[in-house]
């Protein structure tokens, strides 16, 4: 295992310490693995988090216009309720706190428990669950769809609404609106290695890729031969467009790298994605290309679309200043 680390059980705390040192607007709360803003503001608090290994998610989105606190779990494991509670406390200015949860049972259970604890302490807390991954069938009987890169758009939209003085129900409504209009789909080309395990979680042949793989290396929907950028754009968009009718819409597009994919390849993919979308009469209002929600050093990518209306455009374009997203 070739990683720039000291010891597998210290990766999370040392990473967050390194973030605090790099970004003067962030504060790292030791032991509880919370990154929060140095300057608090009088607004509804926005908290997200989840397992580590998805950097810059989520601590990289803490700052003006986005999150107030990000709570980090161990690699690929939800943070525990006590950590999340601390994140909530730090984010609370008395106006209530919204939790943005990705739909994994571990995350749901831990965040729900933290929410209960915070409410027992008299903090107003509400939550939304992101389930944007169309690779996974949606069903009321199962856990349902996973939350992946689309979560970053939810942070942006809800964060802008909160920064603009929205109330907790308003911030929640903005987040729910975004969630209902976001769909994502990804694929992986190489596996990733958990620092504590030391060997790759799965293997793919030299000419094989896995379509629909999750951001934790959870198995995807099928394996395929290597695809060209044009074919890949086709395959990923097909699933997304079959699930939500974006035709005639203006969208925000995210071409997300999983950590080990060079920017060159993401831009080549973007070229194909934009071409297909414009052929289908879908107008791209804004594009985000880069590593936004990763899987350690996995190589691969995901595509995310968000159907925009005037409100969402305004919130998307509102200023933000975080380590991973500025503008």
């Amino acid at each position, binding site marked *: 295992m070739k990683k720039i680390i000291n010891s597998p059980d210290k990766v999370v705390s040392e990473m967050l310490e390194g973030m605090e040192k790099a970004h003067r607007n962030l504060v790292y709360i030791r032991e509880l693995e919370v990154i929060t803003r140095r300057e608090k503001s009088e607004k509804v608090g926005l908290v997200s988090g989840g397992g580590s290994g998805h950097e810059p998610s989520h601590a990289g989105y803490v700052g003006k216009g986005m999150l107030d606190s990000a709570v980090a779990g161990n690699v690929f494991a939800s943070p525990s309720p006590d950590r999340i509670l601390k994140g909530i406390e730090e984010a609370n200015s008395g106006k209530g706190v919204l939790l943005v949860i990705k739909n994994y049972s571990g995350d749901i259970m831990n965040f729900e428990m933290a929410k209960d604890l915070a409410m027992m302490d008299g903090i107003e807390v509400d939550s939304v669950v992101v389930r944007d991954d169309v690779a996974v069938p949606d069903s009321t009987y*199962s856990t349902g769809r996973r939350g992946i890169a689309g979560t970053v758009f939810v942070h942006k939209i809800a964060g802008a609404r909160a920064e603009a003085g929205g109330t907790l129900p308003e911030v929640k409504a903005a987040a729910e609106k975004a969630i209902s209009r976001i769909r994502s789909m990804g694929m992986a080309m190489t596996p990733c290695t958990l620092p504590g395990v030391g060997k790759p979680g799965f293997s793919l042949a030299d000419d094989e890729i896995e379509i629909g793989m999750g951001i934790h290396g959870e*198995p995807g929907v099928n394996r395929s031969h290597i695809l060209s950028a044009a074919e890949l754009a086709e395959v990923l968009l097909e699933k997304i467009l079959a699930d939500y009718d974006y035709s005639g819409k203006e969208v925000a597009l995210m071409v997300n790298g999983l950590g080990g994919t060079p920017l060159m390849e993401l831009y080549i993919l973007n070229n194909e994605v934009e071409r297909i979308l414009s052929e289908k009469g879908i107008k791209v209002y804004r594009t985000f290309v880069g590593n936004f929600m990763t899987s350690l050093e996995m190589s691969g990518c995901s595509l995310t679309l968000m159907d925009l209306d005037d409100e969402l455009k305004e919130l998307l374009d509102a200023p933000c200043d975080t380590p991973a997203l500025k503008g």
Partner: protein
Amino acid sequence: MMTKKDYLDYIELVTKKLEENRDYVTDLDAATGDGDHWVNMNMGFQKLVASREILEALSLKDMFKKIGMLIMSTVGGSSGVLYGSAYIKASQAIGDKEVIDVPLLHTILEAKLTAIMERGNAKPGYKTMIDPLYTAIVRMKAGMEAGMDDASVLSEMKRGAVEGMEATKGMEAVKGRATYQTNKGVGCLDPGAVTMCYQLELLSDCMKPGKD
């Protein structure tokens, strides 16, 4: 019977068992989930072993509660909050008792089962850690009601744990990461069921009359 000290010895045996099965458990979670279940469980139990002194100084009830808090905050993930909730709920069932006999063990396991099912919103048959626990309790109870002696009740419990664990192989996952697979993980054992089974088996061993 088990005293606090016995229980902490048992925790150490579980830790050893986990250490021996690192690759096996990791590969099970890698096949259907995200591959971290062994890391999670190992981290939690290592923490418990490292906290032995603190734990030993508490009452049995408080020890269970502290175990729950330690697992929950050290591990995170699904297993952290589920085991955490289980131990915290079990501690409430212990009251002021200081020794675990078979009836109390049954009560503890029932409390754990309830906690896990509530927290995870899941049931037996969902291909989770619940399955071995549930089957172990069912067999245990039947044995007790049939008037079996302690040793037999405990071996029924162990048999139930193994059965429940093995049954997950044929189940479709309803909760947890295995649900993201097209075949819902059918054909694979659930990693959480396997580590739950280890714990139940060792619990049965540690409660053996010879060990009292």
